[in-house]
C-alpha cells in the first residue's frame, strides 16, 4: 500500500512539473493467455524523448485470465522522425490477478508485481495512434497493445519544485 501511495505522489509531482500530456485509451491482447483487455494511460512529457506513462489495464472477466494492473512505464524515443516515434519501454506494475484460483500454475497468487520490457511506435501530434509489444518478465507472457493518445495539455516549460523532493 505504501508503494501505491508513493506512486501517486510521484504522479502528482510529475503532473506539476512536466510540460505536455496526452491521454490515451487502448485495447490489449495477451498472446499467451489469449485474453483481451482495455487500458488507459496518461503520457507525461509527451513531446520529450524520455516519457513517463502511468497506466491502467484491465483484462475482462470473460477471459481465461481476469486481472488488472496499475503501473508506470518509462519510454525512451529511439527513433524520432517528424511525427514518428519508435521507443523502447520498461514498465513496473502492481497486478491483481482476480481469478488466480482457476489456474493450475504453481505458486499462483492474487497480488503480483509485474515488470515488463517492450517496444512501441506512435505517429502524430495531437492524435497519436500507437502500437506496443510488451513482455511480462514475471509471468513470461507477451501482449500487444494498440490505442490512441489525445494531447490534452501543452503547459509551460517552467519548472516547478516538487514538495516531495524538499
Amino acid at each position, binding site marked *: 500500500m505504501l508503494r501505491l501511495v508513493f506512486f501517486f505522489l510521484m504522479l502528482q509531482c510529475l503532473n506539476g512539473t512536466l510540460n505536455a500530456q496526452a491521454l490515451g485509451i487502448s485495447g490489449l491482447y495477451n498472446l499467451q493467455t*489469449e485474453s483481451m483487455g482495455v487500458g488507459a494511460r496518461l503520457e507525461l512529457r509527451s513531446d520529450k524523448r524520455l516519457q513517463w506513462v502511468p497506466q491502467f489495464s484491465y483484462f475482462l472477466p470473460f477471459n481465461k485470465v481476469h486481472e488488472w494492473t496499475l503501473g508506470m512505464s518509462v519510454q525512451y524515443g529511439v527513433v524520432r522522425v517528424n511525427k514518428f516515434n519508435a521507443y523502447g519501454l520498461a514498465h513496473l506494475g502492481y497486478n491483481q490477478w482476480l481469478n488466480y484460483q482457476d489456474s493450475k500454475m*504453481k505458486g499462483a497468487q492474487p497480488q503480483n508485481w509485474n515488470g515488463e*520490457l517492450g517496444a512501441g511506435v506512435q505517429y502524430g501530434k495531437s492524435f497519436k495512434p500507437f502500437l506496443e509489444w510488451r513482455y511480462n518478465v514475471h509471468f513470461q507472457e507477451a501482449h500487444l497493445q494498440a490505442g490512441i493518445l489525445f494531447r490534452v495539455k501543452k503547459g509551460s516549460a517552467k519548472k516547478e519544485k516538487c514538495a516531495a523532493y524538499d
Partner: protein
Amino acid sequence: MKKASLFLATLSGLILVWSSCSRDRIEQDLNEYESPNTYLDSKKQDEQVFVIDSAGTGPIIGNQGTAIWGGIDCLRLPNGDTIDYPFVVKLVELYLPKDMIYYQMPTVGSGAVLETAGEIRLRAEKDGTPLALAEPCAFKVSMPNADPHINYMNVYYGNESVSPVDWRLDLGYWGINAMQSSIFDVDTIGYTAMIEKLGWINADRNFYSGTTHAITFDSDVDDLSNVAIFVYLPATHSLIQAHDLVASGIPSGVNAKIIAIAVNGSGNLFHYYDELTIIANQTVQVTMSSISDTNLTSLLDQL
C-alpha cells in the same frame, strides 16, 4: 542510422525472449478422464433375487452368508394392500471394502464417519412393485461376522433420497415408529437385528466424537473432476468418498488408505494409491497411473 540500429537490436532482443514465453497461467492440458461409473458398476456385487412362491421356515441366505427371516404377512403394496405368493426378495451384500467401493457406498451418516460391519440392501417386490414392511412388522437379519461384539453395532438405515446414501438411525425420518431394538445382537452367524424398514441397512457404530480433518485432492497433471476418490480407514472398515475433491470428517490420528480410480477416453484404467496418518487438514497431490483390472482388483482386495 545508429539509433535505428539500436532500436532494431532492442527489438531483436525482445523477440528472442519470445522463446521463453509461458502459458502456465492457463495451461489446461491435464490428463482427462471419463466417469469410472461404468467400470465400477461392472465390478459391483450383483443383486441376488429370491422368488418366494410358498410359505417356509427360512431363512433366505445370501451368497456371502446374510440370513433373512420374514413372512408374507409383513409385506404391503404401496396402497397398503396385502399380497399373495409369489413375491420377490432382492439382496445386495457389501461386506468387503472392495465391494463398498465398487458400489460407491461410503459409511457416513450425517457427516460422521461410521465404523461398519457391512452393508446390505434388502428389498421385496410383487410383480415389479416395491413392497414395504407393515408396522409393527420386522424382518430378522443376520449379517456374517467372525468377531462380533455385543451391544456394539447399531442398525442404520440408508436414506436414498441423497447421493451418496446417508445413514440414519432414526426411523422416524420415514414416519416409522420404531418397535425393535436399534442395537445388533450377536448370534452364530454374526450380527443380528430385527429391521423395520426395507432398503439399505448397515451395521454401524458412530465411534468418534473428537477433532476431524479433511483431505483435499489436487493434481498438477490430472484433471480429477471425473476421478472417483475414496478414503478407507482399515481399523474401523469405514469408507469415505471424496465430494468436490474433498474427503472430510476423518477422525484425527487414524491410518487412511487413499484409492482413486479413473478411466480414460480409451477405456484404460488408472489409479492412485497412498497411505497416510491423518493428523491435520492436508492436501494430497494425486498423480494417476495406469493399472490393469487384475492389479487394481488385487489392490482393493488387500485394503
